[in-house]
């Protein structure tokens, strides 16, 4: 059964130096508050996994928390580059970053394989593309029935997956709605999981029998952090702050302004500070 904890305790108990960590969220429900807690607790040598590493991973890379990253698209969506990610890859600042790069289709399949307890995923992918030449973890398998050659990638099995969801009940059952991305698969693929939620309620009250629910017994820890996805968003709670995503480009371009921002907004901040972004709106 999931333990309902403070964010501080949830991270302290579940994220260890050197872990392979997936903080998932496909634009929606990105676990910013939890990622900031990981930075505040000074975790090091993390191997980060995410399909769409955006600002949060730019921050983790920039503070030197990551030794490597497996990903499929590393940018600031609609804005441009991730400057801290680029600085790490191009200039090894603040430390070298080992990268393993895939396509979205391969990453999505690899999470699904992890959730399904399979060793690898296969897809009709990477045809004519150069990634297989630079990523030795992209191999091929031959269909035993038709002899078609398909791409194969290893399953993703994080030590810990961290996601943000809409709400949980007091037992720790969790509800996601809207753009659900690959979060369910990422949690089920991981050895441990932390879910931050906008609110903890008496009744989960899923809107449909087919709602995306992660049961308490499939989750390790739940922490209530209203606003915890900001500047990403929580469907029905608050919108994405596109203005912040645009502003990040300037903040992260320069090492000094980045470090100042981290000090003021992460090191000197607390999880409760995210609550000011959680003005609930009509869905």
């Amino acid at each position, binding site marked *: 059964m999931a333990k309902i904890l403070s964010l501080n305790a949830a991270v302290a108990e579940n994220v260890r130096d050197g872990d392979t960590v997936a903080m998932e969220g496909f634009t929606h429900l990105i676990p910013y508050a939890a990622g900031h807690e990981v930075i505040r607790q000074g975790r090091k040598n993390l191997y980060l996994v995410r399909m*769409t590493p955006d600002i949060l991973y730019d921050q983790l890379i920039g503070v030197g928390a990551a030794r490597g990253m497996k990903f499929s698209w590393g940018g600031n969506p609609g804005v441009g580059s991730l400057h801290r990610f680029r600085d790490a890859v191009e200039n090894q600042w603040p430390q070298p970053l080992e990268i393993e790069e895939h*396509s979205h289709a391969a990453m*999505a399949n690899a999470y699904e394989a992890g959730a399904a307890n399979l060793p690898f995923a296969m897809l009709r992918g990477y045809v004519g593309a150069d990634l297989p030449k630079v990523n030795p973890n992209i191999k091929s398998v031959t269909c035993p029935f038709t002899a078609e050659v398909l791409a194969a990638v290893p399953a993703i099995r994080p030590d810990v997956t961290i996601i943000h969801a809409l709400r949980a009940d007091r037992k720790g059952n969790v509800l996601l709605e809207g753009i659900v991305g690959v979060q369910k698969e990422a949690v089920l693929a991981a050895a441990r999981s932390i879910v931050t939620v906008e609110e903890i309620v008496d009744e989960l009250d899923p809107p449909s029998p087919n709602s995306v629910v992660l049961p308490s017994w499939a989750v390790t820890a739940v922490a209530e952090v209203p606003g915890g996805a900001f500047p990403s968003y929580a469907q029905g709670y608050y919108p994405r702050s596109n*203005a912040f995503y645009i502003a990040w480009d300037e903040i992260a371009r320069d090492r000094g302004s980045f470090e100042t921002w981290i000090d003021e*907004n992460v090191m000197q901040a607390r999880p409760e500070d995210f609550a000011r972004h959680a003005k609930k709106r009509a869905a």
Partner: protein
Amino acid sequence: MNDFTPTEMMTIAASRALINDDVCFVGIGAPSAACNVARLTHAPDITLIYESGTVGTKPDVLPLSIGDGELCDTALFTVSVPEMFRYWLQGGRVTTGFLGGAQIDKFANLNTTVVGPYDHPKVRLPGGGGAPEIASNCGQIFITMALSKRGFVEKLPFITSMGHGEGGNHRERLGMKTKGPTRVITDLCVLEPDAETKELIVVSIHHGVSREEIVENCGWAIKFAGRVIETPVPTEIELTTLRDINARTKKAHQGEKEVA
């Protein structure tokens, strides 16, 4: 109407490539604007799909990312990302993929990964995202990007997604049954692959653009089709639709001034 910018011409020419029956996998940026102009003008029933899992979406403002709430709020339905790529894209349900890119070569291969060597890149770009499988699994591909020497290059440092590979029947030889890139829409002209060689050639030139400008802005010795037409100028409806959605988008994206 003759009072329009090259970028407006590009977006409108790109929107005309789509038809009402298309099921279109939409890339972010310029493709997203073109696809929504098509939906708001001549293709009202087009199905727009974004890789975040939103299917049949009808955004009132253009999304900044592929996963803005606006896409989910206005979609017919929203699926998980594995379902998106496995059932809908790999399943062969998508007629058209609309992509942009940082660099393209004469066979419409795209690079959004690195400039310079992969291990020691001069510029690290965001990477492929959905593009490698969009390029191979959609029925056909449209590409839109501004014509420039930096963008249209003789040889790509990295092939993120395959267009026509080395040209000719390269796609067929690799077992692909889809058409690949069939049109490239730029701010100066429209290119299409030659039926045999698959090299991109100019088939339509935008109003007021000279052949010399096109040659000067392309990184390879670009060829022109035997019969080249002038791209029809934007209609008033096309231009008003594009300007309105851009104005709504600008207002919406600046609306949230709150900073963490």
